[in-house]
């Protein structure tokens, strides 16, 4: 509710023209970078890095004018006297066996480790407050960090930036493995970028695609670095990184080819005008497996070769600040195609939908002679809704058998026979020629034991309580309040009564 009030200006006497200091060279800079790596498994990894460097002593009091460096984080550094802050949110797990080594791995969930300045007196209090504030900034449950999940490592987690001393008393480390990373964590992360998500590489950061991936890790790293080669003063560096691994089968319909548009549903349109460097690197190292070759489009202007993580790699470089790259087609959609000798394999996979349709995996493979082929499928055990359990849930759940259909080459060439004439048992499956025959085999069904909850637990507890109370208390009560006396044996049968009658007549005491 803005009441627009035209201002009646009163004269402020002092507002004389002050001497304008000439524009000093910018004290902060931004570099952005995207590395796209086709992984050995056929998936594609994309790693964004946005690096903001600020030549300023944030710890000094009074410095509070922000340009590229986000104000929210800058205030944190000065208020809590941080030396380093590393925060990551990760969904999924980096599978080194299939994907190779990562640039920067992070544990599933949320991880936070912080080095405080040695001027901080009560580190635990600052740590608690800091995690609460970060929880607000990133919309995450970091406020659940407390002394029960905080540790102070003494050997690992050395400062990554400039550090004079490493007294581990000022280090705190916590992981929240349960933290679920979602859009609400990405939005505040994007807001910290100077170009927001309006220009430059950050245009590609569209939440619905980034979370439709096998691995998603976003991180914020703040550390002091040397301002110049001689390290006479320090600068602050903020690195925002985001790594995602796209499942090639989902985004590429079973092919390993990819393009920016197919992965992010966006293309690059303009560079961020604030960035001093804005590049896309595409890993075009030829692994030379299966005689595959790859082709990137548009052709890169330059390439870059280096040894990264122990292997020699070649990268194609697209510099967005190079006007020719975007101006030619108004947008940049990098594509990579694999060219390979044709092979007669076929894989069809239809993923299941919960309670609607099952998984379907079909593979057409040609088996070499005398070989063993193993097809294994991983699955996770999950809890069903409690009404979906069968009356005997501990029996387990069946998974239908797999089917193997094969055309087996025949040992003996059979002569073609008339299909109508031949015996019925030999003509169930139509076979086109006599050199092979058709077989369909089924495997055993699989009985899977799903975790079953203890349905009767609340009932048991109530029953047990009631029984114990009733038995102990009731018998005790009865014992104390009832009167017990020996029952006189009642006058016996008819014979005894008759006998007593006679005895009374006789004047003899009764029995």
């Amino acid at each position: 509710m803005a009441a627009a009030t035209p201002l009646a200006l009163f004269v402020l006497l002092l507002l004389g023209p002050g001497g304008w200091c000439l524009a000093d060279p910018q004290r902060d800079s931004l570099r952005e970078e995207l590395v796209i790596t086709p992984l050995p498994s056929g998936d594609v990894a994309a790693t964004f890095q946005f690096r903001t460097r600020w030549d300023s002593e944030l710890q000094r009091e009074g410095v509070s004018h922000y340009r590229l460096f986000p104000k929210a984080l800058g205030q944190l550094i000065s208020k809590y006297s941080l030396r380093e802050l590393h925060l990551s949110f990760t969904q999924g797990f980096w599978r080194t066996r299939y994907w190779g080594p990562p640039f920067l791995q992070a544990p599933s969930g949320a991880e936070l480790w912080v080095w405080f300045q040695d001027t901080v007196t009560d580190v635990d209090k600052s740590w608690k407050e800091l995690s609460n504030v970060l929880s607000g900034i990133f919309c995450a449950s970091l406020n659940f960090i407390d002394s029960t999940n905080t540790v102070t490592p003494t050997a690992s987690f050395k400062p990554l930036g400039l550090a004079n001393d490493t007294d581990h008393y000022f280090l705190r480390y916590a992981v929240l493995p349960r933290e679920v990373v979602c859009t609400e964590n990405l939005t505040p992360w994007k807001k910290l970028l100077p170009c927001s998500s309006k220009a430059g590489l950050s245009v590609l950061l569209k939440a619905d695609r980034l979370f439709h991936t096998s691995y998603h890790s976003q991180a914020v790293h703040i550390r002091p670095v040397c301002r110049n080669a001689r390290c006479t003063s320090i600068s602050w560096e903020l690195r925002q990184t985001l790594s995602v691994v796209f499942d090639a089968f989902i985004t590429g319909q079973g092919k390993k080819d990819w393009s920016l548009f197919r992965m992010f549903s966006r293309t690059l349109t303009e560079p961020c005008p604030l960035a001093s460097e804005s590049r896309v690197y595409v890993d075009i190292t030829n692994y030379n497996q299966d005689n595959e070759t790859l082709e990137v489009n548009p052709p890169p202007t330059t390439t870059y070769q280096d040894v990264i993580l122990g292997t020699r790699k070649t990268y194609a470089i697209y510099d967005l600040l190079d006007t020719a790259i975007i101006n030619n087609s108004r947008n940049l959609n990098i594509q990579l195609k694999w060219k390979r000798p044709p092979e007669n394999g076929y894989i069809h996979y239809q993923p299941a939908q919960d309670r609607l349709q099952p998984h379907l995996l079909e593979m057409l493979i040609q088996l070499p002679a005398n070989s063993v082929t193993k097809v294994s499928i991983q699955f996770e055990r999950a809890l069903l809704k409690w009404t979906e359990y069968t009356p005997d849930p501990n029996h387990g759940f069946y998974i239908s058998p797999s089917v193997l259909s094969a055309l087996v080459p025949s040992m003996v060439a059979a002569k073609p026979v008339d299909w109508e004439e031949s015996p019925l048992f030999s003509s169930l499956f139509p076979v086109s020629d006599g050199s092979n025959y058709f077989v369909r085999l089924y495997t055993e069904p699989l009985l899977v034991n799903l975790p079953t909850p203890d349905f009767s637990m609340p009932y048991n507890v109530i029953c047990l309580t009631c029984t114990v109370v009733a038995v102990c208390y009731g018998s005790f009560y009865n014992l104390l309040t009832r009167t017990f006396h020996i029952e006189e044996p009642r006058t016996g049968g008819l014979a005894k009564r008759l006998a007593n009658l006679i005895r009374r007549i006789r004047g003899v005491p009764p029995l």
Partner: protein
Amino acid sequence: MAAAGAAATDLEVVRGKRAALFFAAVAILLGLPLWWKTTETYRASLPYSQISGLNALQLRLMVPVTVVFTRESVPLDDQEKLPFTVVHEREIPLKYKMKIKCRFQKAYRRALDYEEEALSSGSVQEAEAMLDEPQEQAEGSLTVYVISEHSSLLPQDRMSYIGPKRTAVVRGMMHREAFNIIGRRIVQVAQAMSLTEDVLAAALADHLPEDKWSAEKRRPLKSSLGYEITFSLLNPDPKSHDVHWDIEGAVRRYVQPFLNALSAAGNFSVDSQILYYAMLGVNPRFDSASSSYYLDMHNLPHVINPVESRLGSSAASLYPVLNFLLYVPELAHSPLYIQDKDGAPVATNAFHSPRWGGIMVYNVDSKAYNASALPVRVEVDMVRVMEVFLAQLRLLFGIAQPQVPPKCLLSGPKSEGLMTWELDRLLWARSVENLATATTTLTSLAQLLGKISNIVIKDDVASEVYRAVAAIQKSAEELASGHLASAFVASQEAVTSSERAFFDPSLLHLLYFPDDQKFAIYIPLFLPMAVPILLSLVKIFLETRKSWKKPEKTD
């Protein structure tokens, strides 16, 4: 033998009865209180009667006014009566449960030698400079100098003068009723410099019933221990505009002196940021006549929300934030002007939103586009910007223009842009507002605790409540004795303590256990215990009644 057996049985029956009665007694006398005690919610005692007493609190705001008479200001026989003290008390009519009374305690005395000398100097400014030095006046107090009727200190058509500090000058007269007439003038001047109804009404705007003025009155920020001021430069089009502003210099030169003057009212922190690609929420209309774009007045409310999501919350403190945005419109929408109700462009090209901050649109000089290729380098003229932002800052802090009595000369502002008595007026208003807030908080807390019986009241919550009550009482006393500074501090403490008590998380611990669920838990324990006891009690009762009736029958 049979008799002995019967007697033994009788004995047993009596013993059984006694045991049953004993069981019942233990269950009722020991078990029930024990259960009650162990499941009871801990509720520390609170000063309920004092809290309800706060509602009927009478606030007396005492303004000590020293009135100094120079030699020829009043007739001689009147001068003989000096010094003496007059109290002028007046109730401030507000639709509020607290009665607020305003007292001007006027201490009349003769001028000292140096004061005579100063007031006989040529101009008011000189006189002020000379009067200033020897004494330091307490917050909230005022000094009024009465000068002779024909003194040339003031222009001839002016009857009074309000200085930038806590002093004022009033022209005297040679008249039989001189004291009365001068006294009235003094009260007028003193009211303008300290407490008026609209200042208090604005301070209590949240606690008063809605009226048509309330929107205007609710402009100032609520009272708080501190404030954060954020200047943001919005550059939605960094491809065309390379905007630079010397915010550090501007803050140092213009904002900081103002805030230093205000520092008694709270802690201030200032920061600034530049936001790129931050758009306004509305598309401006094109005006073909002037080939410019404009924002209608009724569009302005929609401007703020989309921008606000980019501003970012202040991470480092909990104080309220005042935002001042400088918006450099994108090339496609410039120049951009703000239109008022009548469709005329607003001279300052700025507007403010109550309790939020202000926005100013800064158009790039169109000549700049011709000279060079995009992006155009823009140097912001900070003098122009800060003039607007400081004026908005004053409005948002509720430092309104005073109601000057007729024929009164108002001095120009001091170099900080804030007069000392304006600060005092702010402190009066803030103290009253704090007291009202704290009282409301405590009253609602007491009501809430009375209504919901299973809220835990811990000792520390109780001590905060006691502290708040004591601070309110202390503040009211200090206000009544005219010690503004300590009254303000006490009122802040009252607000802090009362809110800390109200928002203490321990109040919520047991709130979510409704009674029916509690009994569902207890029934498996209570039922097997209660049934035998009740049954045997019923049996004993029936038997006793039978044995009472029997003797009657035999009789």
